[in-house]
């Protein structure tokens, strides 16, 4: 037990610094993929065929592409064109590009739960497509997809560990550091698991709150 605690206390700075980068990645990519995912959803239900096609193709490709490949493209292929993106922004872009496809799909499922008569009624009142979507459809869609959306964000939180392989010093790299210092691997990994549990807790609380507040009575 003593050794278990020492793995944390002796390496506190390393562990905290790495988890702080994980939190930054999560917050930036989380907000960005919610925004991009919502835009993609709007494209997929828009009346413009070109936009619909773009949205569908984007989701098809990104949702079925391993995240590691998205990272590798940005970090190893793009520099060949003399385009230099730093590692942390690259990680944010890769996570956002990947996660927004899942956000889009979750949200589209929510849109399908909004009765079509609502949109028709809104149009009959003279609302534009943008108004129908932002005032009538999306607010209701968001309410119904709270649980799957939190699952998408939860998965993204864990996906941030892929960035450790692409020069972002986040929680996924802690194990390499502590192993080099000769720390017990079982204890190290247990502490990383505990760290992720602590990070997931706010997400769970947020899900409960939102479900209570936004619960739709139908």
């Amino acid at each position, binding site marked *: 037990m003593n050794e278990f605690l020492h793995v944390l206390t002796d390496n506190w700075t390393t562990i905290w610094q790495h988890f702080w980068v994980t939190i930054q990645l999560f917050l930036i990519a989380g907000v960005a993929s919610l925004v991009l995912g919502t835009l993609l959803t709007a494209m997929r239900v828009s009346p413009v065929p070109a936009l619909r096609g*773009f949205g569908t*193709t*984007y989701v098809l*490709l*990104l949702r*079925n*592409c391993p995240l590691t*490949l*998205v990272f*590798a*493209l940005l970090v*190893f*292929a*793009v*520099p*060949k*064109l003399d*385009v*230099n993106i730093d*590692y942390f922004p690259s990680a944010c872009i*890769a996570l956002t*590009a*990947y996660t927004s496809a899942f956000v889009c799909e979750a949200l589209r499922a929510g849109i399908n739960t909004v009765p079509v008569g609502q949109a028709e009624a809104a149009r009959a009142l003279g609302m534009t497509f943008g108004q129908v979507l932002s005032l009538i459809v999306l607010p209701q869609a968001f309410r119904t997809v709270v649980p799957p959306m939190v699952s998408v964000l939860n998965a993204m939180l864990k996906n941030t560990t892929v960035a*450790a*392989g*692409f*020069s972002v*010093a986040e929680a996924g*790299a*802690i*194990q*390499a*550091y*502590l*192993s*080099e*210092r*000769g720390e017990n*691997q079982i204890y190290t990994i247990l502490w990383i698991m505990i760290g992720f549990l602590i990070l997931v807790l706010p997400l769970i609380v947020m899900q409960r709150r939102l479900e209570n507040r936004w619960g739709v009575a139908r």
Partner: protein
Amino acid sequence: MRITRIAAMAAVATLSLGLAACGKEGTPTPETPGQSGAPAAASDACTSSGATLTPATGVDIAGSPTFAKIKSAGKVVVGVKFDQPNLGYKDASGKRCGFDIEIAQLIASKLGIDPAKIEYKEVASANRETSIKGGEVDYYVGTYSITDKRKADVSFAGPYFIAAQDLLVRKDDTSITGSESLKGKKVCSATGSTPIQRVRDQKLTEDSNIVEFKTYSECVSQLIDKKVDAVTTDDAILKGYAAQNPSMLKVVGKPFTDPATGKAYPEKYGIGLSHDDKALRDFVNASLEAAEKDGTWQKIYDGTLGKSGSSATIPPLEKY
């Protein structure tokens, strides 16, 4: 190179069209050196040093559980690296070569196993203790530094080589002359490795300029693409890369020193063995000693690491 570049352009063009990010041929395989940017050097193909390694006969090591396992299996499982040219390397045809590989073959032959019967297992640095403790490998030879902390988990025969921390830079770069000239430069090494922890702890460059990848070959690829300015780790590893791509890369040749004592940091490469197998450790130490005396060690060195122009002295064994 040209094809890689065109494929990369195609992949990026696809991305910018929103047809997005599945790299396909455009994404270089990170672990394969020489593919992502470096013109494939002729030295990529593996050649052996030519040292003769005849399997010993009638070997028995009393009280060694690892040896009993090796003997009943008729083969030996050795943990190695695969991406360190001239040290632990696997070429495109699957052939293995390098200083560490031949040391591993030397030990196998002394154990009475034909080097051709070695089963190589590629074990990443972070997993070395685990794989030795779990018995997945019988011994490990791969730039494995002897440290007291590791000795709590595994035991070491050797050292069979002593390396020092150095820098690999682009050939036309004259601004980096040693560890004190790294300020403002991007420095790359393996994630969490001792060399990069040293750069960070001694503030040799800014934290934002520290770059970490899983493998050194990824660092070298980034160095060639000018995304980083220097790669740091043991000089043995760096000289291997410089020898592989001498038209683009060079080793600075000034070992890092401890600011407190002014001495270099010796990295004593040992052969990782099961913690409690003292009988095998004594045997491996005796085997190394014999190979050092009869010139086999020197022959292996000259035919592998020695090709990069660096000389080396045989380090004294640390038996325990």
